């Protein structure tokens, strides 16, 4: 446990400045539209859109943060000089990144709530339970970004596993790119098989997938869209995530060299 705390502390140290930068970036893109609204005396013309867009951007935050940390470690790969399990090494980075992302999303969500409270009468919300919806929305964003992150981690380990072949060294990115295309082709081929699709989409549960913001004569409509998410597809994504994580850790243990 002490070791994991140490890892968390280290990963926080190496990445905290990027996080603060990101928060600064978010603040800037909240203040800017707000200033425009004040200037043009047009309340709610820019800010709500900015809030939703910034929140949506967080799908890329976790992969971005993870890759930045890995890029730093990859300079020497000496982070691998460590008796801890490689799963622990990477988990610490993921935990820190998720914590950042949650804080950032919470920040944006709070801004959104403040706007909502100020202009309550202008909004028509179709759903009564705002809290649950916002929670699922944020959790969904984190999960999607986590899924992307695991793919990034996978490609990153593949890339660095190829580092020990001098001939490949300059062409590693091409190899990774081809692998990416190949895997995409396979997945779209599998998607095109109807039988498979039928099975995967058989059982469904309702989940909130993103928010929409509409303007009509009556005012603004903030809609949190629910979607019926197929259970088996979900299971498949979880399985893919676990698989990617395990394979990447194996590569990290056996193939990535200092």
């Amino acid at each position, binding site marked *: 446990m*002490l*070791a994991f*705390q*140490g*890892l968390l*502390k*280290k990963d926080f*140290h*190496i990445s905290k*400045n990027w996080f603060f930068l990101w928060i600064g970036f978010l603040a800037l893109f909240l203040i800017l539209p707000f200033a425009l609204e004040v200037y043009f005396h047009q309340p709610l013309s820019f800010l709500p859109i900015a809030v939703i867009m910034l929140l949506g951007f967080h799908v890329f935050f976790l992969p971005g943060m993870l890759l930045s940390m890995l890029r*730093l470690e990859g300079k*020497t*790969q*000496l982070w*691998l*000089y*460590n*008796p*801890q399990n*490689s799963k622990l090494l990477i988990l610490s980075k993921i935990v820190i990144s998720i914590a950042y992302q949650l804080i950032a999303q919470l920040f944006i969500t709070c801004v959104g709530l403040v706007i909502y409270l100020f202009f309550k009468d202008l909004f028509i919300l179709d759903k009564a339970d705002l809290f649950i919806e916002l929670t699922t929305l944020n959790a969904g964003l984190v999960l999607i970004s986590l899924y992307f992150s695991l793919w990034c981690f996978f490609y990153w380990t593949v890339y660095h596993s190829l580092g*020990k*072949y*001098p*001939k490949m060294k300059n062409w590693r990115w091409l190899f990774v790119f081809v692998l990416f295309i190949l895997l995409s082709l396979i997945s779209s081929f599998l998607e095109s098989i109807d039988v498979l699709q039928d099975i995967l989409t058989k059982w469904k549960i309702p989940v909130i997938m993103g928010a929409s913001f509409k303007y009509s004569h009556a005012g603004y409509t903030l809609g949190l869209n629910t979607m019926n998410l197929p259970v088996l597809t979900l299971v498949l994504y979880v399985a893919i995530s676990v698989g990617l994580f395990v394979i990447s850790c194996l590569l990290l*243990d*056996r193939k990535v*060299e*200092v």
Partner: protein
Amino acid sequence: MAVKLSNVSKKYGKEFSLKNVSLTFETGKIYGLLGPNGSGKSTTLKMIAGLVYPNSGKVEVGNEEVSRKISKNVAYLTELDMFYPGFTVANMVDYYATQFTDFDSVKAEELLKEMKLEREKKIKQLSKGTRGRLKLVLALSRNAPVLLLDEPFSGLDPMVRDSIVKSLLSYINFDLQTMIIATHEIDEIEPLLDEAIVIFHGNIIGQKNVEELREEEGLSVLDWFKDTAKNMEAKMNG
């Protein structure tokens, strides 16, 4: 703890970094792994530290085949720039203390004082020599059965080298530890060594007990190294 390499080869593409190397390192001895830059010294140490894997052959530390996990028993001073930007000396020491169970914090404090390192200094602001001393603090603070030092003197001025030799002698436990020093600066470490091993283009071309070398052949390690290297080059060219 003994370290054993059996018929180890390591290739990078078609280039051999190590060619069928077999070596045994015994507990309680100090070994010098000597050779010019690019001769395979660093690869050998990285292999013992579990950071590089052989293409063929076997590397064992205390009868355990080496994997990345072996770092629990192997303290390794790298020639690379290992520090994170933004870290202070204290951050780095504390990080090591959490990762390695054999890290001795009391010893670390003593060593920091001895090496004149300030805990609160940002590593970024330290000179190359000072960073080198910090690396040494991190490696020597561990009570690991195997101690690997890759170019421990690089970037250090001669006065500091002297005190570092002393620290090495003060802080290693000769009953339990095996120490391997890879360097091309032979003069500094000669009196420290039990055995000298010369490596050239990935081949071990000689291994001698330092005192026997002087007694039987009247040669210092440096003389012997020069002779061996010269013969080797002559052989390769002719």
